[in-house]
């Protein structure tokens, strides 16, 4: 299996005012498995950097969801909420991982 993002991880909105109070975001990315012989169910995980105080709903640093991925890129969307003071942060990073803990793509969201 060789999961890979074929597009940017696109946040919406691209910026937010700090502190974040259950701020809703969607993160969209196209993912494919160029070695898959047929689509397979995989678990994708979105993680926040461990160095900041931002968390997803429930206080977790990561959220995951299952997707069925094959050779044809699939658009994956994460709709999540993020909270935290984010003091002294200019941008916070969100990284997409596969279930083998490989980083597939990342993006940075600007804080105002």
């Amino acid at each position, binding site marked *: 299996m060789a999961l890979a993002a074929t*597009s940017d991880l696109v946040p919406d909105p*691209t910026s937010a005012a700090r502190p974040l109070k259950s701020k809703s975001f969607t993160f969209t990315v196209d993912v494919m498995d*160029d070695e898959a012989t047929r689509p397979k169910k995989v678990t994708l995980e979105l993680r926040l950097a461990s*160095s900041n105080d931002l968390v997803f709903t429930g206080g977790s640093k990561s959220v995951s969801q299952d997707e069925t991925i094959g050779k044809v890129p699939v658009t994956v969307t994460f709709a999540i909420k993020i909270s935290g003071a984010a003091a002294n942060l*200019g*941008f916070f990073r969100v990284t997409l991982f596969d279930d083998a803990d490989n980083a597939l793509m*990342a993006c*940075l969201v600007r804080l*105002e």
Partner: protein
Amino acid sequence: MPSQRLQPTIAPLVWTLRAAVCALCAALSLGVFTVATVSAAPQDTTTPPATPAVPPLTGPRPQQDTFTAADEAPGSRNVTISFTDNFIADRLPFDVPFNVVGTVQAGVRRLELTVYRVSGRTDLAALIQYLQTTVDCVGQKPPGRRVSGSAANVGDDNHFSLFVNALDPQNYYAFCFVGVTPVPNSEIQNDVRRILAAMVPRLDTEGDISLDLLKDVRAAMSARITALGAGRPVGATIPPGNLFDTSRPNDPRFALLVGPLVNPYVAMGFQTTNYNRALQKLLSDLAVARTTIAITSDLLDALPQVDSRLPSRESAITGTAAFDQSAFTFASARTLLDAALKSVAGRPADLATLNLLVDDLKAVVTFATAYGGDYDRLQNAATALVGFVALEARSVTVTLGSSVLSADLARNAYVSLDAGIAYPWRLENMVFYAGTNIYFRPINKAAPLRYKGTFLHRFALTVGVTTTVKDESRRVEDLRTTQNNQDTSNSLLLGAGFRVTPSLRVGGGVLVFKETDPNPLLDQTSVVVTPYVSFTADVNVAEIFRSLF
């Protein structure tokens, strides 16, 4: 009847005035009143300096000791200078503020003027040499006293006008100009792209981007921009409020501009990994395929090669060419692979091998395409930032260096003529007199005493001759009598005066006259003095002479 005594005829006064002028001429020719107050500077501009080490004075010209319109006509105090000729065209006025006017080369946005004063020519040489080594007309410790400083923006027609404080005469001056110009766009754009390319990787961290990191990156860019144009004597000056003004810890505009740069840059890192992995897999599968299938040389040539590398992320910032998508579509390879697939129809193993190559090639193209999209986004973001920086750079200025002009203000001490009324003590009547006033410094009567009213601006010695002094009770006779007293006789006035307005003065001193002996049997006279007070009007001698000749 004192009022009657105050009504002399005009003729005696005119005669007295003529006598005073003649006396003044004689005195001046004998050098009696030539007060050597000017410096040793030659008054002839054609005379070379005494010592080779002394830089030639570039102005002012002409050096006649006459007042100029700039001296005497308030509102017309413009002194023209020429940087081309390195010359101050007009004589400098003194004791009154004036404007230095002229033109500068196109592109100079701002001109700053600092005027230094020194008292001796040797000092002036040292001062000029020092200022010429500075770029800001200040340096560390200029060997002269700063007496005026001003700055002005240069107009669209390249004309400028700079204010200069009132200068004291009998000194030498150095006029030091600093030109300031914007950093040329052509110069800053390439530099800014290079700076961006050097700085953006710092933002490509594994984690977040802190405000401190933004601040550091912005400060580093500021430092680099300040140092733009290496080889200039001083770096650029970033004005307050500019994007790269480091006096503010953070500028939200910077994060706004950096955002569109960061995400494509980060994504390109992932896509580079994906592309290289896919390329490696294709090359590996191709090697395996060639052991079982005959791959044509055309197909081999059309497929991606080991060196089919993506352009670097930095090139998207430093370059202006768009990503060459056509170089990564490998369309001919796909066509040839399709043909090969048809040729192996019925051979499942070969078909599977070739299909694997088709999938590998698709992956390579997919990642290259994704990379290309990010490349263009990064390039657009960089162009936007460079464009913004270019706009900001219009207010980023660099100093062109200094130009130094020197000037002397060697003027003679002022000698004026005045005429007025003197009241001698212990005499029956007042006398008219005309005299000369000898100041101990040059005097510009256009200079308001309110601002330039020191003691030496007001005080002068007075030597004068009077109309006939009469006092029968004291048996007064004039010092200079005429035959049978048919004509006006004169006595001498010695004293000093003090200007209360630019032209009116009060004075005092002694009136020197003769007195006959009170014994009628003795025909003997003696020279006596009596104090006087006077009220007179100053007359400019130079103007009198000009009107005479």
